[in-house]
């Protein structure tokens, strides 16, 4: 018995090390390489001395590092959000994007961005958009849940999520049609999903709130594991189902809302990364999967962002396009190999 645990543990430690190393490499790449050529020695110096006054310093600190950090955080949040939703619905094909949560958040953010509701309180900007996104995410979640609990079928859940996505998208496009022209360009760019132009105060917010939520979720790994057996079993083992349900969903919504608010809707990370984590770590144990998804999500999003930036320079590709390129085949292959069933 213990022999096998040791083997599994070894494998997991190796993967954790590989992924951590990859994070460092990909963040490094994102900081060093960019459209403006800055030699490595100079980058090194700017980073060490925290020099932000020169143009190059500005580029490194306020464009590249902030963006690299945002990608790492955003990827981690989306992955954990997806993991929570997959455990909650016991459905392997769900994620914040599929269930319409991201679309709900997008709708509310577009409301804030395209109308003049926030007039005069721009200083609250990251919080207002995040709050709006959170409200939108939760509202969609409540609607999806209320319909899905009536029809207990995995496929119904997916269809409900898809329909909610379409509805939110429809309302968003109506808003766009009525919006002032100056506002539309920024909105369209945001809607494509990108970590560019992220502000340091946004990163601070993500670190603070997101960090607390991630810690909370790690603390919830034990009931999350019980939840793998379904509500009735979990309840019989001593999980407070009502409290736990609300907690999981709020955390999932908050995490994906935060990312949507700062970077726009990003597809497939929340769906694909938990699967990849399960395959890498060869387990469903959430004690391993929560940190595993955090790290793996960070790596993958960071790499995707790098590709989006660099693949066809000077044109920057939308992030969701890159994530879809790697995410969709993963999901399809999982389905075809019957690793998962709906």
């Amino acid at each position, binding site marked *: *018995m213990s022999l*096998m645990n040791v083997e599994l543990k070894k494998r997991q430690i190796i993967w954790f090390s590989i992924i951590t190393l990859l994070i460092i490499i990909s963040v490094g790449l994102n900081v060093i390489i960019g459209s403006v050529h800055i030699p490595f020695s100079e980058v090194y110096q700017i980073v060490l001395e925290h020099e932000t006054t020169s143009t190059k310093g500005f580029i490194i600190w306020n464009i590249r590092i902030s963006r690299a950090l945002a990608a790492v955080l955003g990827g981690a949040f989306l992955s954990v959000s997806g993991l929570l939703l997959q455990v909650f619905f*016991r459905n*392997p094909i769900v994620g914040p994007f599929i269930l319409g949560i991201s679309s709900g958040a997008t709708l509310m953010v577009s409301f804030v961005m395209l109308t003049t509701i926030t007039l005069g309180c721009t200083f609250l900007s990251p919080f207002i958009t995040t709050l709006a996104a959170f409200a939108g995410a939760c509202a969609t979640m409540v609607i999806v849940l209320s319909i899905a609990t009536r029809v207990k079928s995995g496929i119904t859940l997916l269809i409900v999520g898809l329909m909610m996505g379409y509805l939110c998208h429809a309302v968003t496009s109506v808003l766009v049609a009525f919006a002032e022209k100056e506002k539309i360009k920024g909105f369209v760019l945001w809607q494509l999903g990108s970590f560019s132009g992220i502000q340091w105060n946004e990163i601070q917010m993500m670190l603070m709130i997101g960090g607390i939520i991630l810690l909370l979720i790690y*603390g919830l*790994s*034990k009931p999350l*594991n*019980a939840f*793998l*057996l*379904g509500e*009735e*079993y979990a*309840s*019989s*083992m*001593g*999980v*407070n189902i009502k409290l736990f349900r609300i907690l999981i969903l709020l955390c999932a919504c908050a995490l994906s809302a935060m990312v949507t608010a700062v970077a726009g809707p990003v597809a497939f990370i929340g769906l694909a990364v938990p699967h990849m984590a*399960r395959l890498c770590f*060869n*387990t*469903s*144990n959430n*004690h391993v999967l929560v940190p595993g998804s955090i790290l793996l999500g960070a790596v993958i999003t960071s790499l995707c962002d790098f590709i989006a930036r660099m693949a066809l320079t000077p044109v920057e590709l939308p992030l969701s396009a890159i994530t879809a390129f790697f995410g969709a085949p993963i999901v399809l292959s999982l389905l075809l190999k019957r*690793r*998962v069933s709906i």
Partner: protein
Amino acid sequence: MNYPQPILQVDKLNVGYHDKVVLHELGFQIEKGEFVSLLGPNGAGKTTLLRTLSRYLSPIAGAVYINQTDLQSIPQGHLAKVMSVVLTEKPSPPFFRVFDFVALGRYPHTGFMGKLTPADERVVMESIKMVHAEDLLFRDINTLSDGERQKILIARAFVQEPQIILLDEPTMHLDLKHRMEVMTILQSLCRDKGISVVASLHDVDIAAKISDKVGLVKDARIIAWGEPENILHAETVAALYDFEGASFNRFLGSVEIRGNGASGSVFTVGGMGSSAILYRLLSKRGFSIITGVLHENDLDFFVANSLGADCLTESPMEVIAPETIEKAKKRIFKCAWVIDTGFSLGALNYGNFDLLKAALEMGKPIFSMRKKGGLPQLTASSKGILFSCEDEIQIVNMLEKKVNEAP
């Protein structure tokens, strides 16, 4: 008097969903180490009752007491150490080995992060041994058969170290081997570990043989609760499941299925346990059975009676009365065919041999399984015909052939 306190007690309990009451006015109690089966047709409310007992549903009225404490007021973590469940749903999350799956059941005993201590691991191993699944230890649960998975789910419930386990249809979809294995495991939970088991079952015969108590769930209430020996009669079981064309026999402990009698009547002279198999075969092939003369403690009588046969009987240990023989002769006269099962003869049932001789005199064809060389022998008379047959199958095959030849 000092009775042990019941583990679980139910008082004027109404169970159901929302405000719709499924079962009314329930009252029963379950003792330590007792095996209780809930029997009843599909949709009678057995699952609803189990869900209420496990607190997944709240009672609509009345209360459930666990060790004299109201179920609703027991802290959830504590309840999980007293009661565990095996549901009809068989979850199988990916990447789970049997050991880890069973270990999930340690939930109420482990700390905040759910880390297993060596003591926890010992309990997990013990319960895997309990269900004879040591060989499955490292298997992925997704590769297990239904029967194996059910054993693992029982081990998971046992690992909570409860005083009572609730199981919803634990033998559903299982083959005979696993069905028996699961029931044996459950029985040893009661006998050896002193755990009370409440299971909803569909096999009346198994339930009758294994349970200490049975509860019959029908028509929105429990129509009977008590020892199966007292409760499971042919009539109650027939009422429970609205049987038509079948009946439960408490002495045989099984259900006999009646034929439609469309193939015609045949008179069987049998007894002494020689005809039970023949009766079932005749019934299966659609013959209506007339038989006699059977002593009322004869296995043949129990089977024939459950099959709805027209039986001529005699009290146990009595010589068959001449009047009964006369009645039998009249019935034989009306039947086209007679079967002799080759029953053993003694002073008490010698009348049956006379009956066979009389049948030959009447010119009835007799299909006989009587062994050659045994005494006494039947000899074909001028009128009757004697067909000698090896076994029941041969008799019924010949019989069917003759029936089809007849105009």
